């Protein structure tokens, strides 16, 4: 197991380098120097900021030297300072990261516990009213823009019924609460964002789960289990489920970039001070250092998520650990 994990981590190194190269290309997309765009056309960017950009990217040197000097700084997580308040970009991102990661982890847990039973039930009762209703539901969820659902849920449950708060992650008098009270308060604020963040993936993954379960329950070993006279529960939840879950682990891993992308929108709608909203703010104020830092860190988070999914997969399927 340890060997497998080490091997996977070593394989990540070229990917990491690739991520920095692409991020570096992005900042050089502007015709001419990024500083021209940033400064001459945009009065918001001061002389000082322009000099800082020139210094960080070494814009007077050849491009590969620029990259090497940039990557040296990035390796120590030095992305330069924010143009807006002069604080290190990485600090701003790291401050905002926990809440984004928390919402995404909660969404994944919700997806896991709702999508999987939904998919199993649809597969087992294929063609039933339940299957058909859930198929229609899934199709609609798949097509509905997440931010629109967020707005609708917000105006219905938040504004009209007043059941849940519609903005932020904590109440104004948060400091006066006990520890339990604080947790409940944040939980209360997170109900809608987590729900909305998971709806899209939930639909997709329940669909995959249904398909995966259907593939498994037609296999010979399941027929054998039936022939042996095992009960339906044992067959479905012990024999079939284990194999049907394997592809789902990979798919949940692959859905991480999508979930993170979603954070950009939901954090803006619900006014949550996370990485996604910081990214939007940084784009509006042309705060290039923060934008670049956010881009690199979001890709790192995806890599980390994929790594966890791979390790979970190898834990579930010994063929991966020992094979190859």
């Amino acid at each position, binding site marked *: 197991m340890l060997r497998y994990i080490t091997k996977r981590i070593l394989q990540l190194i*070229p*990917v990491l380098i*690739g*991520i920095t190269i*692409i*991020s570096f290309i*992005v*900042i050089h*997309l*502007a015709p001419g120097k*990024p500083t021209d*765009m940033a400064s001459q056309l945009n009065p918001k960017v001061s002389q000082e900021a322009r000099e800082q950009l020139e210094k960080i990217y070494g814009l007077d040197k050849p491009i590969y030297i620029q990259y090497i000097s940039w990557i040296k700084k990035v390796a120590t997580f030095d992305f330069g300072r924010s143009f807006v308040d002069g604080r290190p970009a990485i600090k701003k991102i790291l401050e905002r990261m926990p809440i984004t990661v928390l919402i995404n982890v909660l969404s994944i847990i919700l997806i896991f516990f709702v999508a999987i039973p939904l998919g199993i039930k649809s597969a087992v009762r*294929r063609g039933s009213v339940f299957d058909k209703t859930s198929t229609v539901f899934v*199709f*609609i969820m*798949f*097509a*509905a*823009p*997440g*931010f*629109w659902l967020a*707005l*609708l849920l917000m*105006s219905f449950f938040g*504004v009209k019924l007043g059941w849940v708060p519609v903005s932020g992650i904590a109440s104004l008098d948060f400091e006066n609460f006990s520890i339990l009270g604080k947790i409940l308060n944040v939980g209360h604020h997170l109900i809608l964002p987590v729900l909305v963040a998971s709806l899209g993936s939930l639909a997709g993954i329940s669909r995959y789960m249904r*398909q995966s379960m*259907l593939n498994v329950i037609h296999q010979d070993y399941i027929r054998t289990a039936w022939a042996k006279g095992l009960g339906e529960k044992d067959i479905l939840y012990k024999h079939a489920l284990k194999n049907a879950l394997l592809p789902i682990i990979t798919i949940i891993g692959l859905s*991480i*970039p*999508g979930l*993170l*992308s*979603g954070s*950009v*929108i939901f954090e*803006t*709608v619900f006014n949550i001070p996370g990485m*996604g909203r910081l*990214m*939007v703010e*940084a*784009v*509006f104020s*042309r705060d*290039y250092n923060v*934008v*670049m830092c*956010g*881009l690199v860190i*979001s*890709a790192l*988070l*995806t*890599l980390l998520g*994929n790594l966890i999914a791979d390790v979970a997969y190898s834990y579930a399927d010994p063929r991966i650990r020992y094979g190859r």
Partner: protein
Amino acid sequence: MNRLTLFGAGIILILALVAIFAPFVAPYDPGAIDVEDALLRPQASHLFGTDLLGRDIFSRMVYASRIALSIGIIAVGIATLLGIMLGSIAGYFGGKIDSVIMRFTDIMLCFPSFFLMLSVVAIVGPSIFNIMIIIGLTSWMGVARLLRAEVLSLKTREFVLASRALGAGDFYIIVRHLIPNGIGPVLVSFVFGIAGAILTEAGLSFLGLGVQPPHPSWGNILMEGKAVMGVGWWVIVFPGIAILVTVLAFNLLGEGVRDALNPRLRRR
């Protein structure tokens, strides 16, 4: 053909007609401001009501359908062309070229798409043209993988060998034999891709970083509607339904195309 596929195709056809004949369909000028008529409820003279500036929402949505469809089709067209090129080259030549291209694909897939797109928007600025290019350049990876897999299995077939024996060059084999034979799954992903691109455009415009006012887009109508949704539900309900129905239609059509191209597939 399945009924749902026809339903999807029908909606797309209607939408395309609305987009093409927008000036005849829309009862008002989409930009015409009339503060006296601000936030009118849906009624006979304003089918979907009016927004804060008194603009007719139905007319704005009709014009927005032009933007949604053209961004969808052009962005996915760019992505598909790129994907076809990279995927067929990787699959056909194999070896080092293949591993470089596929590594590049893997790396591109590591970026959460919105973070990547926002970063590019930060540099080049938001506009309809830029959004098309940005969505296109960040969504070709699926197509490249699909076509590579197809080419890998096709290139060892006898008709390819025969063609090569007759003196055909690499370019000829790729363009005349491999791409046409492997295009099926790409076609399916083209249709699904349009649905995805329309959602992406709506999301970007909703953030204020996509299609810029005064151009109406379903996403930016929603953005402007968010501020007044407590007073006028119609401002946020109708554009959202338009996006939902359009995306649903493309998804249904995509499912239909997939089934049509795969006769062995029994609908499970």
